[in-house]
């Protein structure tokens, strides 16, 4: 061995480089990534899922909820500053994180490793779905901010396609999973749940949250297909309708 060269002298930069102590901004970017997933994106997700359960009460209640949300002050600022831009950042930085990591589930098929992989795939599904969801329901067709009465019909129209319904169900599961496990990761990484027991207990909480979100999400999605409202909400009792003074534009014509 005396004649062999010292491996660390000749090949200083081979392999994984050592820690760049005190250098770079990845700490900040990474923390922003994980924070943005909880606030505002996670908070918005909860609001969105809860608002959508109004569909279970019928088109009028759903329209009223849409109208209420659009009556909030500074809606464009809320939309861009607290929803679109954070999601865009979270998604882009998330894809970057995914691209730099390397899953090795084949040789190490362990629970945490599965979750690691699932977090990446569910994130991708959620992002792809959100992109089409926002485009279809927010940026094309009838503008619901101006015509909240058309909300139920617009979503109904979207979900009437069985492929689209299947996509929604998959996306609801993926998004709920991604958020719930993301919340668990947030608590672990930010030093909130530092104990093994604390992490396990919070794991149960997050699992329950995921199940609740999936249940609420699927129930809401299916509510739009309730045969009772097959011919539009105008045929249902109109007491709430007149109260909230909603209009029903022709969805098909404005598409």
């Amino acid at each position, binding site marked *: 061995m005396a004649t062999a060269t010292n491996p660390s002298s000749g090949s200083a930069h081979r*392999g994984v480089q050592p820690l760049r102590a005190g250098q770079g901004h990845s700490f900040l970017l990474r923390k922003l990534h994980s924070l943005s997933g909880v606030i505002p994106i996670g908070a918005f997700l909860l609001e969105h899922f809860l608002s959508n359960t109004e569909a279970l009460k019928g088109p009028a209640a759903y329209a009223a909820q849409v109208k209420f949300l659009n009556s909030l002050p500074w809606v464009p600022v809320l939309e861009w500053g607290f929803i679109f831009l954070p999601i865009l950042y979270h998604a882009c930085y998330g894809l970057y994180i995914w691209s730099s990591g390397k899953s090795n589930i084949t040789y190490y098929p362990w629970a945490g490793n599965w979750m690691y992989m699932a977090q990446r795939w569910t994130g991708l599904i959620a992002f792809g779905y959100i992109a089409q969801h926002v485009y279809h329901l927010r940026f094309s067709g009838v503008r619901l901010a101006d015509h909240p009465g058309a909300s139920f019909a617009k979503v109904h129209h979207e979900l009437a396609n069985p492929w689209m319904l299947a996509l929604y169900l998959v996306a609801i599961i993926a998004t709920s999973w991604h958020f719930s496990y993301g919340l668990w990761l947030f608590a672990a990484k930010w030093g909130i749940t530092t104990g093994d027991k604390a992490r396990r207990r919070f794991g149960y909480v997050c699992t329950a949250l995921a199940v609740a979100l999936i249940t609420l999400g699927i129930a809401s999605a299916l509510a739009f297909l309730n045969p009772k409202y097959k011919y539009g909400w105008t045929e249902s009792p109109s007491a709430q309708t007149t109260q909230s003074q909603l209009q029903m534009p022709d969805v098909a014509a404005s598409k």
Partner: protein
Amino acid sequence: MAERTIKVEIKRQHDPDGNAVVEKFEIPYRPNMNVISVLMEIAARPVTVDGKETTPVTYESNCLEEICGSCSMLINGRARMACSALVDNLEQPLRLEPLSKFPVVRDLQVDRSVLFENLKRVQAWVPIDGSYDLGAGPRITPQVQEENYPLSNCISCCCCMEVCPQFNVATGFVGAATIAQVKLFNDHPTGKVLKEERLHAMMGDGGIQDCAYAQNCVVACPKELPLAQAISDVGRQVMLQAVKDIFTT
């Protein structure tokens, strides 16, 4: 009748830049062999299964009791210590490869100096150098000893880094072993004088933020270090330091 044998396939590489080839061996079976004794057997008669003469396989090992940390390699695809890998418990043919995330020196020997470099960058030591006798250090309570002793069991085998999906050339992640040592020395009554510097080092690129809690390290660690616990504890220390920095720097 054919004797019972052990079939071994070894990924070999002559030098750091060489091409890797797989050589197959078949050696007589003995009960209770470990992977190191298989390699010794091959070294005694380095002939492949095709009858071709070859060189003994290069590998690192020392203590043979899972305490020196030098014989880590991929055994049937998984990172583990060759000394504590018992042939009777392994599927055959045995597949031996060098750790995949460290530069190969030769055959199964890899250059793991990145861990040593990382430990230096976080100052994983108790600073006692001085121009005069500093006297006895402060007492460490049994409670703190009990919490920290498991962390001192790290044998620098690098299994935690090899199995980590986040440890690779793209991230340059520091890995669980170094983070555990940050906790060990931050909790030491004399070592904690460098705590702030260690935490700032941990915030650099490749620092603790790159951990994604796949927790493969916890399962793979041959010394069963409480690595998830250490990472989340240091995570808290780093977060508190970051918040403190916002207001005090």
